[in-house]
């Protein structure tokens, strides 16, 4: 077990290095740089700067150095000093910009994950044990729909419904009047009334997929001889199903937690843009469009790191849950 964890962790290190490099390269890919984008923005606003000024800016920001040098400067600051660099556009340290939003992203993602599981596991078990029943068909259709509807579209529609029929302003995370108000029950309720949309959007997509996975796993397991053995002991259907096949069917499920994290982050990015949430999504989009390299790079890096860690955790969880892996 220990050797298993150690091996997984050691494997994660090159992955992380590679990811950080890729993140950096990706943001370097666009022709031009922040200064070009900045100049273009100024031109649009009717202002302009000279070529010499542009060049000086580049010099200042170190944009003329070879890519590897820039990469090293960036990553070594992160690793050794926890400094993610400076957002060129916001004129603030990246760290300051990121952490709040990242916390919110994580909160929404984990909340959605919990909802996904709460929905997907019982429904999957039900669908499998009552295969071809009316509700099985209903859930199957839900599953397909959930997979077919793009997150952003669902967010749009929910927002529209909330706006047009429920007289709710569901965009953003908080109504303007509460923004600077002290923490009260009302403020919390207000946040919750905004929060349900992204959570529903993210959980629907996730749950739809996981219900299918859980149902398929359960159907596999229900046909296995050990289930018959359990029935032959005189256990009731509920005891058999929840103690045996569910327990085994959850294993591949656990291993997908890690995989579902990237999906949730991805979903969050796009949903947040639509819903105008103060999470990482809109900031990342803006940073990418502006070629705000340190900001965008740090975002992609951090999201990827979370994902790698998520995968690692689910690997370890899986090994912990499944004795066949633990003792292998």
């Amino acid at each position, binding site marked *: 077990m220990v050797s298993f964890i150690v091996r997984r962790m050691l494997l994660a290190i090159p992955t992380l290095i590679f*990811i950080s490099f890729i993140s950096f390269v990706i943001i370097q890919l666009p022709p031009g740089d922040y200064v070009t984008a900045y100049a273009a923005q100024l031109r649009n606003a009717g202002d302009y700067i000279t070529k010499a000024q542009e060049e000086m800016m580049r010099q200042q920001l170190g944009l003329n150095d070879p890519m590897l040098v820039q990469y090293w400067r960036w990553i070594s600051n992160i690793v050794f000093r926890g400094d993610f660099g400076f957002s060129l556009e916001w004129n603030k340290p990246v760290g300051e910009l990121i952490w709040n939003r990242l916390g919110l992203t994580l909160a929404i993602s984990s909340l959605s994950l919990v909802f996904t599981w709460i929905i997907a596991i019982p429904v999957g078990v039900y669908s499998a044990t009552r295969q071809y029943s009316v509700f099985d068909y209903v859930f199957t259709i839900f599953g*397909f729909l959930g997979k*077919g509807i793009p997150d952003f579209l669902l967010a749009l*529609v929910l927002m529209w419904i909330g706006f047009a029929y429920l007289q709710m302003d569901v965009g953003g995370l908080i109504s303007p009047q509460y923004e600077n108000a002290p923490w009260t029950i009302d403020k919390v309720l207000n946040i919750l009334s905004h929060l349900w949309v992204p959570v529903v959007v993210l959980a629907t997509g996730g749950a739809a997929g996981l219900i299918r996975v859980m149902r398929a796993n359960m159907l596999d397991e229900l046909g296995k001889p050990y289930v018959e053995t359990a029935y032959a002991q005189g256990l009731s259907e509920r005891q058999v199903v929840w103690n045996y096949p569910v327990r085994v069917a959850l294993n591949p499920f656990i291993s997908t937690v890690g995989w579902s994290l990237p999906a949730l982050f991805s979903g969050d990015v796009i949903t947040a843009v639509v819903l105008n949430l103060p999470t990482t999504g809109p900031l990342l989009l803006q940073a990418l469009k502006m070629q705000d390299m340190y900001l*965008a790079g740090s975002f992609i890096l951090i999201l990827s790191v979370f*994902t790698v860690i998520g*995968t690692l955790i689910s690997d370890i969880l899986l090994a912990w849950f499944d004795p066949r892996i633990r003792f292998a």
Partner: protein
Amino acid sequence: MTDQAIETPQPVSSSAKEDLYTAKPWTLIWRRFKKHVLAVISMWFLILLALTGLFADMVAPYGPFEIERLRTLAPPTSVHLFHEGEFVGPFVYGLARERDPDTARVIYETDKETVLPLQFFVSGDEYTFLGLFRTDFHLFGVDDRREQINLLGTDDLGRDVFSRLVHGARVTLSAGLVGVIFAFVLGLALGSISGYFGGWIDSSIQRLMEFIRSIPTIPLWMGLAAALPIAWDPILVYVLITIILALIGWTHLARVVRGQFFAIRHEDYVMAGKLAGASEFRIITKHMLPSMTSYIIAALTLAVPEMILGETALSFLGLGLRPPVVSWGVLLQDAQNLRSISLAPWLLTPGLAVIMTVLAFNFLGDGLRDAADPYGQ
């Protein structure tokens, strides 16, 4: 060898059974597939959609960029059959444009007086048919040049949403298909190398796939897509976007291919082929590939919707295809804020088209997957 009469004495029982016994694998797959009603319906829907996309210029009554300044955000016109209780065949009413005296906002009123019979195979705007010749032939339309038929309404520039949707189908569907083809080539190459050679080659390719899967898709797509300069040729952007989609999508296909390779490589019949003296090439082409194709086609079908969703999402965010290219994702950009949706909900119809197409591909893929193993039971 007298007691070798293993045959049952009666002759070949019925021709139906013999037919089953000698049916080609693909015939059996088709027979099984046909039993999935939903999958068959989806298949026809997609065929129809593909034809519509292919002949978009003809199916659409108007060009995708044709602006009608006096018909901005017009609601969908519905097709009627009876005018004042009298059957007159399919027709639409005219549309009267007024201004709300209080808010000065444009409102449209159905003009119950003007009956515009729906004409089929009419001449309209000129276009180049499949890049071959100029023609002005359209599937349907109305005769009156001053009036329009907008089955799905118009957008804020007065462009016909239905026409744009039909043109968008061409781009979105082909982006999905081309993306899948790129992904498939990558997946097939790496998956079969991985599955066939095993060992360290396999594990390093596995690592690479794990790595790619561990990157959050949309941020990566966004990062890559943001690298495409705005000024580039739309066609080039289109190709690059499909490649970006494929770069991430291939891992899934590679897993399927590799899994199949592993499963089949350890079948006894592959060993039997080897012992019969078959070359590697023959084993792969005669034994392994034929038994994998049906699974792979199913997997490909299931991968198309992923690509379509990817394209739509990127374009919606403004990172993928950009106007003047017309794709469903680009069309959905118009529906980005609540104001326009509540004013003109028909702008969401491209979203409906995405959902239906994605569902159809999923049903089709599911049906194919279930039918892929005709010897399962």
